[in-house]
């Protein structure tokens, strides 16, 4: 009897290890076998990856705020008092 397909629950639970490339060949193939048969997990994987990308983009594309004069003054003052 061939191994039953992994469940969507297992897929979701260990998804990060698949995404980070931390799985061995056998496990990775099981993930891919599941993906080939399950459109919902394909959609889940894709949106999971894009969630990370959106968070990264948020950090990378932040406009640099100006430095308020009060902040400069406060830093210098607390340095003198330190």
């Amino acid at each position, binding site marked *: 009897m061939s191994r039953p397909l992994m469940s*969507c*629950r297992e897929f979701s639970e260990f998804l990060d290890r698949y995404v980070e490339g931390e799985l061995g060949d056998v496990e990775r193939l099981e993930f891919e076998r599941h993906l080939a048969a399950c459109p919902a997990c394909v*959609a889940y994987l894709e*949106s999971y990856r*894009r969630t990370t990308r959106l968070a990264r983009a948020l*950090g990378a594309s932040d406009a*640099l*705020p100006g430095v308020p004069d009060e902040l*400069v003054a406060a830093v*210098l003052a607390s340095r003198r008092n330190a």
Partner: protein
Amino acid sequence: MASRASGPAPEQDEALLLDRMRSGDEAAFAEFVRRHGGRLLAVARRMLRSEEDANDAVQDAFLSAFRALPEFAGDSRLSTWLHRIAVNACLMKLRTRRRKPEGPIDELLPTFHEDGHATNPAVAWREDAEAMLGRERTRSLVREAIDRLPEGHRTILVLRDVEELDTEETAKLLGLSTSAVKTRLHRARQALRTLLDPHFREDDR
């Protein structure tokens, strides 16, 4: 003071400024804060939810940097060194601030039927989700979703995905094992995905 186009090369310029600071030149400290304050403020605003806390953390970060200046060897990049100091100052702030009780993350994680199938099977996201990030409305949407994560998970997601520290560094800063960081990061990403899903799913046009 505006820098001249014909001035010294940036690294040389930076080394000169550090030397002036080491000799206690007050104007050099002001120049240093003006130069790097914007980037540190951006980090602090991403990590902390209040502007007041962000300002405090930036001040603390600069004071730590000034204290550590004699040991700054110049073998790591100054911007990387300062980024780490700022992250540390923000973590201190998060620790000392009165915390609201940690909400459970479970209700933001995917749920499954007895047979292992998802109770709400995922739907594809619209193609232009990332492009939408150019719009301020979308950026604040992602920011607000991150802010809705329970504090412990939020911190890990911000350190790993927004500030792009690696797992080891994150684990060290938080006093956690790397496997605990990985598990929490995975849950945090799943929870963030749940929160973003209604805004980005394909059938929601």
